[in-house]
């Protein structure tokens, strides 16, 4: 059986990758993807803990998270499209109209 720690380490790595992606990528779509990565890192944790703690709750939580993430991405992409229409760019660097 795969030890729990493997999952936990994997989840930590995925989380950090997502975080780094958010911090260093400039394309807002990739930032969205990175955030998805972070959410999925949490999902890995939930499923793994759920399995080892022998309770179903964590896996139920994952379903909720997946649904919410889908909704969030939908809204996010809508915002991205609206943004692109107005600015013709997806580069967050150029979002400097509001005084930084």
């Amino acid at each position, binding site marked *: 059986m795969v030890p729990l720690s493997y999952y936990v380490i994997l989840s930590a*790595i995925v989380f*950090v*990758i997502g975080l*780094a*992606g958010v911090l*260093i990528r400039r394309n807002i779509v990739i930032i969205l993807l990175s955030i998805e990565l972070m959410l999925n890192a949490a999902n890995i944790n939930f499923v793994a803990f759920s399995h080892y703690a022998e309770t179903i709750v964590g896996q139920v939580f994952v379903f909720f998270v997946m649904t919410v993430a889908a909704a969030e991405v939908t809204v996010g992409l809508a915002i991205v499209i609206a943004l692109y229409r107005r600015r013709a760019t997806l580069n967050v660097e150029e979002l400097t109209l509001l*005084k930084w």
Partner: protein
Amino acid sequence: MITALAWSIPALPLAGALVNGLGGLFGFTWLRRVSHFVAVGASGLAFAGALMLFLRLSAGAPPITLTLYQWIFGAGLHVHVGLLIDQLTAIMLMVITGVGSLIHLYSVGYMHDDPGYPRFFTYLNLFMFSMLVLVMADNYLLFFVGWEGVGLCSYLLIAFWYEKTSAAQAGTKAFVVNRIGDAGFLLGVFFIFTSFGSLDYATVLPRAGELTTAAATAITLLLLVGAVGKSAQLPLYTWLPDAMEGPTPVSALIHAATMVTAGVYMVVRNHALYAMAPFSMETVAVIGGVTAIFAASIGLVQYDIKRVLAYSTVSQLGYMFMAAGLGAYAAAIFHLMTHAFFKALLFLAAGSVIHALGGEQDIRKMGGLWSKIPVTAWTFLIGTIAIAGIPPLAGFWSKDEILNAALSGGHPILWLLGLTAACMTAFYMFRLFFLTFKGPSRLTHEAEHHLHESPLVMTGPLMALAVLSVIGGALAGYPSEAGWIHHFLAPVVGAHAEEEAAGGSALFGVAASIIVALLGLTIAWVMYLLRPGLAEAGLARFTQAHRLLLNKYWVDELYDLLVVNPTKALGRVWDWFDATVIDGAVNGVGRGTGRCAALSTWIETHIIYGSLNLTGYANHIMARLLRLVQSGLVHHYAAIFLVGLFLLANLLWWLNHADPGGDGLVVWNQAASFINSLRRGGGS
């Protein structure tokens, strides 16, 4: 009956303010014709009410306590909206409503042509209300409400002629400086709450003896910070001279007779607490003594008629603080009262001069007004003699008691400070008088044309206050140290320090204070009337000292340099930092330079494609990140990276140090041991 009477005293000015204020809000045009009736009527009726309570108390009736409703409660604290009217409050009530009503009346003439006439009376009544709440409150919190309220009204009234930028700035300055003091006061209130579990005077003050010296010192010093701000003592006095930008009746009412004395009232009210803290008492006395001479010295050379009076007020308040610090509470309140008479008189008379000259305040452009505006001149002279401490006018009695308290209380240095300040007072007041009313006329042609005596509605209050300045001192304070006011206040402040004054030293003290007063008068007479060239010659000789005084020791500039500018700069720095950090957070690493862009691309490809081997790359990436941190732009948002890294490092550290025998968190111990084995296996 008595309940209704007591509540009506603060309620009447409030009602007046509401009528005038709401009328103004709805833009009623008839308001201009009636607003003074409302305002003067409200304060006059309040005076009548105060007089009835005062007579009751002086006939020997017990203090009145009244409770309206519970205001703030919880955690064992119960604060009510309630009144306490004892002898101390009664005297304050008489001063506030009496002098206040006269000043209201005077304002009818003074502000007659002002477009903001109803607004002025709204603020003035609101001020009366706040001041009455302040002195009638039966607990610290309600007191604080009045305390903040008077500060607020003072702000509104200083900035009344906000068309002048200086007026608006002076208002803001007064408010902010006061807020600093108020913060200290509020902290003192919190300490009182922790020490006694109550904020009622009736509970706290009798139990003051339970305090340790340290606690009492902390509380009283914090309260003192508030008093120093409100009463314009060193080091928070700078707002008061600037406050002269307000209309003159305001200067008379708020910045001479009532609000600025709130600090003195507060110290006297809390004398039981101060008695427990000898150090605080010393501090009060020293602040008072030093302020007295400091402000008086600045007053020596000022040319603005109202500014001279303002510095004089600061200086006189210093006397009151000195008295309170020496334990001569009755003397402090006595001086508060006489000062209210003669300083209100002086300000109103100065206002009458300004009015007569069409707005001129510079005494270098006055002179020779004695016969032109006789009532103003005579009353101003009476005020001058009273404040200079020449018997038998009011100022002599109260100031002499204070100086005597210093001398007989074993504080010769304070006594000398007070005596010197008294000499200066006599000098600058007679200088003011001679330059304004005597000598050749230096009026501009325009002012000459405008010159006229004020109407009766203005001279009436002047004459009333002049009478009070003449007889008020002797009536209340004779015989010295055992006068009526001492007996009246004895139930509140105790009768101590009354009999201490030995006859010999008292006589010596009296003689000294009369001599210095006459000395000051004589110098002023010689310099400004007898040999007018002497003043210029003196200036030429002591240019440096003169400039120091004229620039008020550069204290304002110092405060700007030390406090105001750094605070603003800090705000700006943070604003900038904020902007740049958030910039970085979203924008990412590669902003601007191609090098950074390339570097981030490099990292990103290696992260994405090498993610499975990430652990192996850890050191590599760390190094890269560190290089990034040093590469210029990135340092702006490095904070975020570092926080993240720090957290993760913490995770590792914690896992390594987790207690394996912990309580059932098997899952995590497993993880910890795994990471440990990984580390060991990796062979760092």
